[in-house]
């Protein structure tokens, strides 16, 4: 009886119905509508057309097929997918190798200096990435700065033919991605408890062992973050291959773009886009697993 009264009181105080939901709707409502219209519906559309047939004039026939997915298994496309992975992987590894010492060095500086150094890392990131890529393009041209300098120095006798090659695409990916790698690494190294390093030394471990057994496990969050922030974008950055690959280097991002804009095979482009989304999701899934483990360890 008393409980019933309490319940009634609680209910009357709460006032269910449109008035109770108003704060929720007014705050998250607009963004939800935005997300539904501009993210979810297009994604569903892409998913749907990936199972449809291309018609002769570049349109879409509403006929269900798996063909778009089976086409990807052709050696030509498999090769492109594989190459995309290879370049993204190399980019990630180099970003880690270059970014980690840099982040470690910055994290060891007093806060004011560290902020300035991080600013230096970030300035190129704020510059349009197209501008940065065209500057790489200029540098790599046969009569560009790089070749002129190397020839003047007598290191090479003929201009290197690196423009529109895998090498220059890789350089482009590095230029685009390096700032992203330093930031997560910095934030995790900066949080590293220095007394753990002292404890490791105290227990007889030299610098290498300490790095391997304490520093790396303790900064794993930053390392995984760096991998995510570099690997996923570098899989899809089609404009890098556009500017630096000159159509000679074909990666998965360029392939998707071409299917939509050049050859007008939307269903095939859509199926590749879905593949890329699935890969991204898989990587994020792995991250969330690692992330959780890390949370447990850090607390």
């Amino acid at each position, binding site marked *: 009886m008393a409980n019933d009264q309490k319940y009634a009181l609680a209910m009357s105080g709460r006032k269910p119905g449109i008035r109770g939901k108003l704060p929720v709707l007014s705050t998250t409502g607009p963004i939800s509508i935005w997300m539904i219209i501009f993210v979810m519906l297009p994604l569903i559309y892409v998913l749907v057309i990936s199972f449809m047939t291309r018609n002769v004039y570049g349109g879409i026939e509403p006929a269900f097929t798996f063909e778009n997915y089976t086409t990807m298994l052709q050696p030509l496309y498999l090769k492109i997918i594989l190459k995309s992975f290879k370049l993204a992987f190399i980019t990630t590894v180099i970003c880690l190798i270059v970014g980690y010492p840099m982040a470690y060095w910055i994290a060891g500086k007093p806060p004011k200096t560290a902020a300035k150094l991080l600013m230096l890392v970030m300035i190129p990131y704020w510059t349009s990435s197209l501008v940065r890529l065209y500057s790489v393009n200029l540098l790599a041209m046969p009569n560009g700065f790089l070749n002129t300098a190397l020839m003047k120095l007598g290191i090479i006798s003929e201009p290197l033919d690196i423009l529109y090659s895998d090498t220059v695409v890789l350089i482009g990916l590095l230029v685009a991605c390096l700032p992203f790698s330093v930031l997560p690494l910095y934030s995790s190294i900066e949080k590293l*408890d220095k*007394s*753990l390093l*002292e*404890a*490791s*030394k*105290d*227990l*007889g*471990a*030299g610098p290498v*062992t300490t790095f391997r*057994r*304490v520093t790396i*496990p*303790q900064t*794993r969050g930053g390392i995984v973050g760096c991998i995510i922030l570099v690997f996923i974008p570098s899989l899809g950055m089609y404009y890098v291959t556009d500017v630096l690959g000159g159509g000679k280097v074909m990666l998965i991002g360029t392939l998707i773009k071409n299917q939509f804009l050049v050859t007008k095979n939307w269903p095939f482009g859509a199926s590749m886009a879905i593949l890329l989304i699935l890969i991204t999701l898989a990587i994020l899934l792995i991250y969330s697993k690692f992330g959780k483990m890390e949370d*447990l*360890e*850090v*607390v």
Partner: protein
Amino acid sequence: MTEPIVRLQNVNKFFGDNHVIKNLDLDIEEGEFLTLLGPSGCGKTTILRMIAGFEDATSGVITVEGEHVEDKEAFERDVNTVFQSYALFPHMTVYDNIAYGLTVKKVPKPEIKERVREMLELVQLMGFEGRRPDMMSGGQKQRVAIARALINNPKVLLLDEPLGALDLQLRKQMQIELKRLQQKLNITFVYVTHDQEEAMTMSDRIAVMRGGVIEHLATPKEIYGRPKTRFVAGFIGESNLFSGTVASVEGDRAIVDTDVGRGMMPAEDFKPGDPVHLCVRPEVMQYSTQPVDGFTISGQVKNMIFVGSQYRTLLEQPGHPDVKINRVKVDNSYREGDVLYLHWALDDVTGIRAKEDSDGE
């Protein structure tokens, strides 16, 4: 006497312009429990870190077992540290934490297993092998930290305020346990704390530090009963201090004129005219309602407080800190406002030679 296990000779340490350790000499004997005690910023932790190898001395000599260690890295020294914040590796289990020192030395696995088991038994943490440090209480983490250090059989164990983060009950229990461990293993402990009671409870010897200098190095009893400097008298326990000069020496006693009246102390090698501080502990301060021969110090009873374990009487003296008298039993023969005459036995007073540098409190 055998050679000290750790010896610091004429050690100086600067942090920038800050002279934190000043010409310090310290011999630590094998198997003793030595405590570095002092207020924060006195340099006690710096000394510990120099012995461990985390800080380099700016000048001076540090030896462990007669061997110079100034140029040795922390991982090359046969000393181990228990850190203030435990510094357990969060990504490792208790087992891996304790085994760490042996693992990096590439000791065979079965031996490591055996030693870790011994250590867990020693610190009474059997069954905790698989736990992560974040799943343990402060006291348990403390034990893991101690086990992790002791498994390496260090010649010296350095402890940097290891009980600071624990609550009072647990701290007292751990004090006794640490002392038991130290006696059982017969390892030299160098212990840093700012808690005088902790230092008194556990130490064989205490080095009381202030401003980068050891003011008094002696047994707890000696430090409490016969403090060497005014600072030590004030820092360790409660004390009543009277400043004055020696008026005359009569046989084995010296008459001292203080700023609040006349008192006495053992003559020792004091001469008339020497400036001196008289230190009398509150529990041995005597009083009577009539003046006593040779003493002219008196005060008015300001208040009487029951502080739990004892009754405290404060006597007011114009221009001088209140005089404290502590007694286990309440004395109803006087009340607030009464005047009491103070005196003491010659055994209960310490004459501290007044020096310029140790006067500035």
